[in-house]
């Protein structure tokens, strides 16, 4: 039985970051974080290069970093990269926006109203473990192989993820905050914008970051279910022709896309989310 949803893992990550921020900054934070990352990336690249040179893999199955870069430049030059990136971003972006808005609103509603939560939580707990990829055939049967099916599939997956995090964050807002606001004469709209929203903002940010990663997962599932363009569609085509260099390039683009989206959301969060500086 899924009596209660699992506690969001991201929450712990946020706490970890808050802890780090409390420590005195010895010589700046950015180099401290970037240094190990650069070193690790260099090590991975070197190992990859060595492995490719060693001839351990069958010919053509393990491209070197240089060959991968060439494949990337090739698809960038021919315009397929831009087309695929544009198609994927549009799908993931629109699906994410729809899912985040609906899931966020649902999360605020169920987090604030225990009665509604008691009604909705069992339904969501049942739906959540079903992977988005398992819904591709159903989405195709209902909405065809067009863009609607893909966007709705992504939106659905994002909705469930965002709902869970936002619900959790809102239901943890101390009742004292809301009571204090009422005793200070704040009407409902002020209690929402000036108490519930800022109190749940860290959870909201975690929800959006997690939702964005879920959007990428669902995007790949949706495109593998049939598409004319897109990053995952291209991976499938390249796979049929055993173009491992292109597949490597495509996977790297997917990875970079995920990192870029997360950085943007984290940046927005730093601007708008108050973290306790205790």
């Amino acid at each position, binding site marked *: 039985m899924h009596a209660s949803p699992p506690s969001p893992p991201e929450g712990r990550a946020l706490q970890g970051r808050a802890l780090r921020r409390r420590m005195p900054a010895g010589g700046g934070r950015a180099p401290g974080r970037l240094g190990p990352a650069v070193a690790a990336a260099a090590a991975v690249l070197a190992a990859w290069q060595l492995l490719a040179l060693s001839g351990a893999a069958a010919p053509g199955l393990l491209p070197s970093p240089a060959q991968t870069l060439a494949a990337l430049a090739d698809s960038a030059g021919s315009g397929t990269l831009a087309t695929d990136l544009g198609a994927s971003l549009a799908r993931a972006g629109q699906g994410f926006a729809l899912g985040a808005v609906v899931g966020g609103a649902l999360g605020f509603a169920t987090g604030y109203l225990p009665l509604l939560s008691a009604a909705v939580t069992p339904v969501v707990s049942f739906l959540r473990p079903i992977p988005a990829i398992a819904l591709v055939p159903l989405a195709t049967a209902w909405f065809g192989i067009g863009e609607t099916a893909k966007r709705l599939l992504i939106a659905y997956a994002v909705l469930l993820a965002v709902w869970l995090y936002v619900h959790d964050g809102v239901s943890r807002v101390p009742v004292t905050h809301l*009571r204090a606001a009422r005793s200070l004469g704040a009407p409902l709209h002020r209690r929402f914008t000036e108490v519930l929203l800022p109190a749940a903002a860290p959870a909201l940010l975690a929800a959006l970051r997690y939702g964005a990663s879920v959007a990428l997962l669902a995007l790949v599932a949706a495109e593998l279910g049939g598409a004319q363009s897109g990053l995952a569609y291209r991976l499938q085509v390249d796979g049929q022709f055993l173009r491992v260099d292109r597949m490597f390039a495509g996977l790297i683009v997917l990875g970079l896309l995920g990192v870029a989206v997360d950085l943007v959301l984290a940046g927005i969060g730093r601007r708008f989310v*108050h973290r306790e*500086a205790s």
Partner: protein
Amino acid sequence: MSRAVRLEGLAVDYGRTSRRAAVPVLDRTDLEFPAGSFTALLGPSGCGKSTLLGAVAGFVRPAAGRVAVGGTQVCGPGPDRGMVFQQYALFPWRTARGNVEFALKRFGLPRTERRRRALAALAEVGLADGVERYPAQLSGGMQQRVALARALAAEPDVLLLDEPFGALDALTRTRMQELLRRLWQRTGTTVLFVTHDIDEALALAERVVVLGGTPGRVLGDHAVPEGPADPALRARIAGHLGTG
């Protein structure tokens, strides 16, 4: 302005569900707190002090009876009754000034006037320096100063305090008690002060109501005369506390 608070046969239950009967927490209670009076509600932990205060604040719905403030029945929280909690009450995402301005917003003042009043309110509680700090950057005593300033900024008729100094060290607590007495004398607000500390009750209040038992009820009601501490009164109140 200040107003009288009346509890008329007030009783509170908790935990009523479709399967389980409610547990009585506060027995039928009749009490009157005159306008401008300062009363301490004294009792051991778990006897229903917070519940009683919550009923006056409008957070807790009575199972029977009613609470009236200035003759009007309480049916929910409102800015005529200010509340100071033991902890977690300040908004951590707002500075000290921001917290007080939150309370002032209901007056619809221009921004500069709101700011001016918030700074004046913080200066009055002795926090002129820390106004731009967040609660987490303030000591417990300073946080309760802000909480007092915030509650009074909304200009309540009744000020409700639920063990507000319970977490403070002895010296800070004495200073806060002096501050509260001063603020009460200036504003003339009706004060209900919950504590489990007999000496705090005697140091602060004009009247000490002793609560105890399960469900909670009034065990004693004592006027505290002005002037030096009266050991006989303290012994009588301690006796009532023991009967709970």
